[in-house]
């Protein structure tokens, strides 16, 4: 999308037209809807700054998860419906960090460190599998994710965790479904340099952490390996002819996505305040997928801008619709609207002809 706008170099109107076209109608509708919500907010008695802070907060929780879509989209592995696998690596990291007695904000970094080997191993197995089944990645990714989540449900019960803050008090074994992070890495990032003025609160630390990762991703995509990754995704034949080892590049992209998923869930948890186990990771892939698509990505093309715009729009709708809609028509239709908008967006992306041929 961004290249198109940049290369046009025509007068402003032309630029806008090209932008609108490349942006896609569904995205315009969603962006327009969010804008309308923000305009309506003061009229229904919702404080604009509270709403904005909520949106930014939720943005900071989810942005890394959405960023984890980027490497796999670039290497042509499609939308990472297998995100739960990365999330499980993150959950393992988080719970083991607590089990080992790490406390305070530092436990976040311990968790990231501990999650990394899991993410790399899971990513390697997962990437190896995806290389075997090129062309059918998305469906299989979905079910690999589901299988992993349900297998881990058994594991959460059986693994030898003992920390009294995590296991069921009565039985003494088996992790609880939700674990409070009070005293551990609650607000480990969000609390850093946080700005609080009146109704406006901005978790600067989380945003900085995301910016760091996003910048690293951007820089990576401009290295030799990164360009090779884009080449594999956009034109595998050409990449092969240029002597790129396609399988290796794809494997790397899957490992990166899985690791980012692991870090992403830890960032989410430090903002949200709880570790959610068992079936919770089950439906975490779809919001992330639709967020990046809303931001303007397609099945094999995504940029950092797509991540930022998409996460902001998606989380904006998630936070704004309940308050605004509730006060306007006294019906909580937000959940339904979110389901329709986000899944409609995924269907729209899947049916784009230009990408199907590749």
């Amino acid at each position, binding site marked *: 999308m961004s290249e198109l706008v940049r290369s046009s170099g025509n007068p402003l109107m032309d630029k806008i037209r090209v932008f609108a076209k490349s942006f896609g109608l569904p995205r315009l509708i969603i962006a327009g809807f969010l804008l309308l919500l923000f305009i309506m907010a003061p009229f229904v008695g919702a404080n604009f700054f509270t709403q904005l802070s909520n949106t930014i907060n939720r943005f900071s929780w989810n942005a890394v998860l959405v960023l984890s879509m980027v490497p796999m989209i670039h290497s042509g592995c499609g939308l990472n*419906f297998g995100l739960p696998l990365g999330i499980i690596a993150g959950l393992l990291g988080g719970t083991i960090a607590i089990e080992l007695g790490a406390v305070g904000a530092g436990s976040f970094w311990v968790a990231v460190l501990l999650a990394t080997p899991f993410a790399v191993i899971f990513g390697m197995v997962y990437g190896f*599998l995806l290389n*075997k*089944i*090129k*062309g*059918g990645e*998305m*469906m*299989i990714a*979905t*079910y*690999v994710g*589901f*299988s992993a989540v*349900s*297998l881990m*449900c*058994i594991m959460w*019960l*059986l693994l030898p965790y003992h920390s009294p803050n995590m296991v069921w008090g009565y039985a003494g074994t*088996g992790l609880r479904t939700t674990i409070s992070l009070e005293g551990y890495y609650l607000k480990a990032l969000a609390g850093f340099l946080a700005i609080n003025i009146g109704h406006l609160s901005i978790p600067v630390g989380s945003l900085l952490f995301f910016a760091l990762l996003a910048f690293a991703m951007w820089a990576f995509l401009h290295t030799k390996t990164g360009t090779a990754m884009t080449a594999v995704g956009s034109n595998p034949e050409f990449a092969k002819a240029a002597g790129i080892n396609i399988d290796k590049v794809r494997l790397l992209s899957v490992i990166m996505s899985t690791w980012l998923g692991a870090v992403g869930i830890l960032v989410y948890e430090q903002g949200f305040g709880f570790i959610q186990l068992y079936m919770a990771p089950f439906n975490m892939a*779809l919001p992330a997928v639709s967020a990046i698509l809303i931001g303007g990505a397609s099945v094999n093309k995504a940029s950092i801008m797509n991540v930022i715009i998409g996460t902001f729009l998606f989380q904006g709708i998630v936070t704004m619709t309940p308050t605004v809609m509730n006060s306007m028509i006294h*019906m909580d*239709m937000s*959940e*339904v*609207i979110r*389901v*329709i908008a986000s*899944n*409609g967006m*995924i*269907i729209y992306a*899947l*049916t784009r*002809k230009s990408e*199907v041929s590749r």
Partner: protein
Amino acid sequence: MKNRKTGYEAPLEKISPARKVLGFARDNTVPLMFILICAICIPLSGFSVNYLLAEIVTRISRNSFLILSLLIPIMAGMGLNFGMTLGAMAGEIGLILVSDWQIWGIPGMVLAMIISIPISIGLGVLCGKIMNMAKGREMITGYIMNYFINGIYQLIVLYAMGVVIPIIHSSIILPRGYGIRNTVSLLAMRQSLDNLIAIRINGVKIPVMTFVVIALLCLFIVWFRKTKLGQDMRAVGQDMEVARAAGINVERTRIISIVISTVLAGFGMIIYLQNMGNLSTYTAHSQIGMFCIAALLVGGASVDRATIGNVFLGVTLFHLMFIVAPSAGTALMGDSMIGEYFRVFVSYAVITLALIMYETKKRKASSKAGRELALAQKLEEENK
């Protein structure tokens, strides 16, 4: 001679019995695995044979119709129809309306089916059209369609019913005046089809009429395969381009296959729910597609090939596992939740495994075709 040199020999040599057994095991990995799981779990669970038989008969009668609805899209090469849930939702809307009108028993069921038909057709056409736009990724599209249409279903059932669509009965509508309650009781309709003609053998109730209906559907599918349309579908499933060259309207044929599947799934859901006796308005359909697909795959079906035999073997093995897993888990690990999670895991793992096997087979076939083509070209060049 050339063939020898390049390592591609014709399959002339005799296949040893050991390899035959191995080949059989490889082709039927999933059913064999399930027979093994059941063989281990049944003694552990401690259920009596009679109890298991009764449960299995109930579940076959309850689920077979739904699973059979998956066969036609597979024939048309559209893979496992994850969009069958759309039909299930149409069936549920039918049931909600007839329970509001207080029409019970067989007339209620038939009326619900009639109501579900136009909804199913509409949804099927929509789903088919979208799948035509996403050729090659029908399954993931169908899967997301579930969620999308589920949103619209909620919009209708939770907000429009009682406001736009008149619903009067207070046992169905939420106290706030619009929207349907979480559960709609179908007690007055419960097992009306099953009990129409039911015989008991050794305490095992056999719902003859339900089985007659299922048998009729099987006959329909067998007959349908032989019709012109059925043949067209198989041609489309084999190769879309060839079918198009032969003058078949590929897009239309594919849409029809999805429409038939959706309508049948609607009927199947009504049969399923009359057996259950109550309708969980917002969750009844959410897992149904997954369980039906898993059951079909357990029966030895693959993404591109499924028979009626697969349906019945699958439903038996899958539900046998489902019945015994929790108590086997309790006996083995002392925790019933482990068995619960185990059966969920197995359902997903089976689908994953089947999808992986299908994709690797497809890739192998295409690379083999590529190699053969390259070989043929090489031979041609040498002959020149």
